[in-house]
Each structure stands twice: as structure tokens, then as C-alpha cells.
């Protein structure tokens, strides 16, 4: 037994009125109690417990720092993709419509020819809005966007033709007061088609001219070679004679 502990204990017991005989007896009891305190569980057993805790900590770290964030990220990605895909069918005024516009802006920065597809989409929206007899403010805004796309970027005559067809169907379906606005858009579309047609023709003619001049220069070249060949033949004949 620790000496300080024993001295302190004796003082405390004396304060409580212990007699010397009793002290010996009580210390026998204390010594008996103390004898049993020397046995301990093995070091290996204790280390095994700590290893279990450590493994749990690693597992917990994996779940909290890697697995769950990865799962959340995948889930958010899925939501984002699903939202973007379903937004493609949305119409102006619907909650997912801004997502559609955003995704279009992203795609056209990567692929500028996507403008033609955007034009067609606006025309489809105009058609749907007209069929559904939606608010003319929304229709006007969509027509403005359509015109903007048409004036600045569209060059694919097939898509523009399809857009025109959509607008014509929209005109048929729309209420009377919107018909004129749609008609204006159809007119602009027709002008654009003519513009593209003229450009194509001009381009075709200039190509024809280029081909013709290339042919002419080629013929001239051939003539020169033939003439040169004829002169050389004559001088050879003279030498032989």
C-alpha cells in the first residue's frame, strides 16, 4: 500500500475514533482488498479494443467524408440533369423555362450552329403558346426573341423553313389580335429565306466564275504547251534533213 495513502488513512480513521487493536484488524481487511487489485486484463486485449475503435473511426471517416458527399453529389447531378432535360420541353412563363434558356446559351457557346435549332425552338414555342391561347405578353416576348435570333445568327435554310411552317400553324391557331404579330414574324422569316437564297446564288455564281476562270487558264496553259511542242518538232525535222 502507498505510504502516503496509509498515513493519511490512519489520520482519518483516528479522527473517527479508531482504537489501536481495531486499526490492525481493519488494516488486515484493507490489505486483503488491496491484494486483489493487482490482476489486470492483458495488454493485447486492450490494444485489440483500441484497434476496433480505430477501424471504426476510419470507416466513419469514409462514410462521413467520402461516401455521403459522393452520394449527395451524384444525387444533385442527377437532379440537375433531370431538370435540364425536362426543361427542354418547357414554355415561356413556366418555372423551368429559364433553365432551358441557360442550357441553350451554354450549348451555343460551344456550338455556334445551335442558333438555328434555337430559332426553331422559339417558333415551336410560339406555336404552342398560340394553340394554348396563352397570355399575349408572353407571345410577344417570344416573338421578339424569335426575331432577334432570326436577324443575327440563323443561316440554315432548312431550319428556317421549318420555323416558318411552325409560325404559319401558330397563326392559324392563335387568337385574332395576335395573328398580325405572327404574320410580321412570318414576313421576316420569308425575307430571311430570300436573303439566304440570294447569298447562296451569289456564292454559286462566284464559284462558277472561279471555275470558269480556272478552266480558261488551264486551257491557255495547254495551248502554250502544245505550241511549244509543235515548234520543237519542226526544228528536229530540220536538223534531220
Amino acid at each position, binding site marked *: 500500500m502507498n505510504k502516503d495513502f496509509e498515513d493519511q488513512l490512519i489520520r482519518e480513521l483516528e479522527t473517527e475514533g479508531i482504537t489501536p487493536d481495531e486499526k490492525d484488524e481493519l488494516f488486515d481487511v484493507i490489505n486483503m482488498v488491496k491484494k486483489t487489485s493487482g*490482476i489486470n486484463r492483458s495488454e493485447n486485449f486492450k490494444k485489440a479494443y483500441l484497434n476496433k475503435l480505430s477501424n*471504426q473511426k476510419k470507416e466513419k471517416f469514409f462514410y462521413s467524408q467520402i461516401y455521403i458527399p459522393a452520394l449527395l453529389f451524384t444525387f444533385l447531378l442527377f437532379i440537375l440533369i433531370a431538370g435540364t432535360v425536362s426543361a427542354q420541353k418547357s414554355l415561356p412563363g413556366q418555372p423551368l423555362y429559364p433553365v432551358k434558356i441557360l442550357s441553350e446559351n451554354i450549348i451555343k457557346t460551344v456550338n455556334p450552329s445551335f442558333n438555328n435549332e434555337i430559332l426553331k425552338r422559339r417558333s415551336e414555342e410560339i406555336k404552342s403558346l398560340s394553340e394554348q391561347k396563352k397570355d399575349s405578353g408572353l407571345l410577344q416576348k417570344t416573338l421578339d426573341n424569335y426575331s432577334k435570333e432570326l436577324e443575327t445568327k440563323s443561316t440554315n435554310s432548312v431550319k428556317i423553313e421549318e420555323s416558318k411552317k411552325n409560325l404559319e400553324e401558330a397563326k392559324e391557331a392563335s387568337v385574332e389580335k395576335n395573328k398580325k404579330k405572327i404574320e410580321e414574324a412570318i414576313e421576316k422569316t420569308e425575307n430571311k429565306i430570300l436573303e439566304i437564297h440570294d447569298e447562296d446564288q451569289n456564292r454559286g455564281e462566284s464559284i462558277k466564275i472561279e471555275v470558269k476562270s480556272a478552266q480558261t487558264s488551264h486551257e491557255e496553259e495547254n495551248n502554250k504547251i502544245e505550241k511549244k511542242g509543235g515548234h520543237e518538232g519542226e526544228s528536229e525535222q530540220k536538223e534531220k534533213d
Partner: protein
Amino acid sequence: MRDSFDELYLQFSDKIYKYFYWQTGDPYLAEDFTGEVFARVWKNWKRFKPDFSQAFLYRVARNLLIDYWRKNKNRNEMSLETSIEAGIEPSYDEDFIEKIQNDDEIRKLRDAIKLLPENLKEIIILRFMEELSAKEVGEISGLTEVNVRVLQYRALRKLREVIKNE
């Protein structure tokens, strides 16, 4: 952080095991309790570490025991909720358990201690087996130092009497 917890476990787990062993007389239950105490401390180690003391560890052990007695008066099982939450399956040092189960002195003392009233049993365990000071025993049991001194005298006399009568 982990190293200091390991040191704590290596230093105190035997003491806490023995506290539970003498309190319950069951070596397996004592191991379950010990694992649960350290799982609880480990779970909140960041919070506990700055003010950690030996007395605090015994207080956690004592509260667990009181809780167990209150809930399972007639059943010899306990809730290992924190150990299970931490994914730790109970395991036992069978050699050690066999040793204490077959030791006559330990068995005699265990039977004697079992006959003591709860408050005196706790004083014997904390004051004489674990060699804590009267002040620390008071902190753990919610008694004043003077009360502990009075009770320790009474506890020793009672234990002597029980041993004599066995």
C-alpha cells in the same frame, strides 16, 4: 487526439473494469460496461478532453451503473447503445476472466462485498481498491469529504464483520 485517448484507455480501463466487477460481481458484464464507458468518452473526446479527470471517468461509470440498475433491476443485461453505435462487438479476455473466477481470495471478497449496503460497497471499491482520495470519492459519489471519511470507517468495520461471519 487518438493517441491521448489510447493512453487514457491503457491507463484507466483496468480500474474502471474492476469498479464494475466489484459492483456487479459479473466479469462479462463488467467488460460490457467498461467498453460502453470508453465508447462514450471516445465519442465525445474533443469535448471531454480539456477538463478530463479520473473522477470524471468514474462519474460516467457510476451513472451508467445507476442507469442500468434502474432499468434492468431483474434482468442481467445492459444497453450497449454507444458501443453498438460505434460498431464495437463485445469481446472478453477469457484467460483473465478464468483467472479471477478461479481465485479463492477474489471469490471470497466478492461474496463479502455483495453483502454490503450499496453506499458502503462503493466506498470500499473507490477508496480502498482504487485508492482514490476521500475528496475524489466525494466528487464521484456526490458526498462531502467528511461524509466519505465517516463512511469509510463504517464500511471497513462492516466488511470485517461480514468476512468474519462467512
